[in-house]
């Protein structure tokens, strides 16, 4: 049976893994390749690398890192952060990335999703959506959560999938960093409305939160960063716990 996926996310800055609290007080969390190998050994199903320092001059460093990661690990991984052209995607896929994630650039130019998916296939195009709940609605935010739009996350997710996005990576800004659990209501709404997998992100603090994201949120995969980086939750223990709760996982 197809299993639910556990996905550690690594934020990358200048070739190192970093972790901040609400994008501030960024601290070093180690060498991304070493961390990636550790996660593979613990039983992670996929990995996501987000380059938070992504600028044109940093692009080459990133593609070199991607090649190092690709040659070191034997599970699929996604690379994102500042990707806004076919050329960017081509370089990263050729460096060994399996999927790329796009966010702000796709919102500003939705045709980019269509161009990328027809050129490289939907399976490698992940649409990342940052969303925040305000006045009764979940709105899309851009530029790492700095810029508000009037678009509802639910509408944007559906449009993105119609344009060819192969997966949705949904991050709730209200939940991110709180360790109080995932935003299961919006995750469920979107997961049940689109015919592609939805990856829940933002808010993981305990093993129970993962169970809830799958059971209540109907997520296909759940992503987290700090609980894994700092060994608060061990992936193998987490998957055992999920299995005890009758959630199908690869163990």
């Amino acid at each position: 049976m197809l299993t639910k996926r556990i996905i550690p996310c690594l934020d990358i800055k200048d070739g190192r893994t970093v972790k901040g609290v609400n994008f501030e007080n960024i601290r070093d969390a180690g060498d991304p390749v070493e961390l990636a190998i550790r996660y593979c050994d613990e039983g992670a199903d996929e990995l996501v690398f987000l380059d938070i320092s992504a600028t044109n001059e940093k692009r080459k460093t990133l593609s070199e890192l991607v090649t190092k990661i690709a040659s070191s690990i034997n599970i699929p991984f996604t690379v994102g952060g500042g990707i806004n052209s076919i050329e960017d995607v081509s370089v990263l896929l050729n460096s060994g990335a399996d999927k790329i994630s796009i966010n702000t650039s796709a919102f500003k130019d939705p045709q980019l999703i269509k161009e990328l998916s027809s050129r490289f296939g939907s399976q490698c195009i992940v649409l990342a959506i940052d969303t925040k709940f305000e006045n009764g609605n979940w709105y899309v935010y851009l530029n790492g959560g700095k810029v508000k739009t009037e678009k509802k996350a639910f509408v944007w997710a559906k449009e993105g999938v119609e344009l060819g996005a192969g997966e949705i990576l949904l991050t709730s800004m209200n939940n991110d960093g709180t360790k109080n659990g995932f935003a299961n209501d919006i995750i469920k709404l979107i997961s049940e409305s689109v015919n592609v997998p939805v990856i829940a992100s933002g808010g993981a603090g305990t093993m129970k939160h993962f169970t809830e994201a799958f059971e209540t949120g109907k997520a296909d995969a759940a992503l987290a960063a700090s609980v894994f980086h700092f060994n608060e939750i061990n992936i193998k223990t987490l998957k055992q716990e999920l299995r005890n709760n009758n959630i199908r996982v690869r163990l």
Partner: protein
Amino acid sequence: MKVVLIKYNAGNTQSVKFALNRIGIEPLLTDSIEEIQSADKVILPGVGEASSAMVYLKEKGLDVVIKNLKQPILGICLGMQLMCKYSEEGKTDCLGIFNSTVKRFSSPFEGGRRSRGDVGDVPYAKVPQIGWNNIYNLKGYLFKNISDKEFQYFVHGYYVESGENTIATTNYLTEYSSALQKDNFYGVQFHPEKSAKAGEQLLKNFVGL
């Protein structure tokens, strides 16, 4: 040992190359007919679309070359589907090595909001299938030291029904062929190059054929 990765317009060759490197093999990525014919082992990788891949293989004369190979050849994902008779993806005739048709998963999701929840044992079946799933009914040397129910990583919207050439099955919306074999021709629907230790074992087995 000369292992050739066939270069064509359906990508993912890097991942396969790196996976082979990890088991000590440096493959040659090429579309040269002589290099392919003189290889000990040939791999036809594939992530892409069937009809455009077939057009490309025909233009390069690789369709005839592949069909007539005598050494072990492994098709991965789209590579396996191209070895079949016909694909519904782009409605194209394929290489015709395996006597099977490639069909699109029929999703309970089609046309917007899902009308029903779980489909049999499959929770919230979406198309394409993306993720780790089990392989069953394993036959032959390709699966040496790989146990029944082992997990492999899948990404596909089209599938091959179970039939005479099936050497492994998987369940997703239906029971289908996750691996095929006929003589020296092998195909796997999943991605061994991305399937952790179990995938690595399969690549070792293929290279050891």
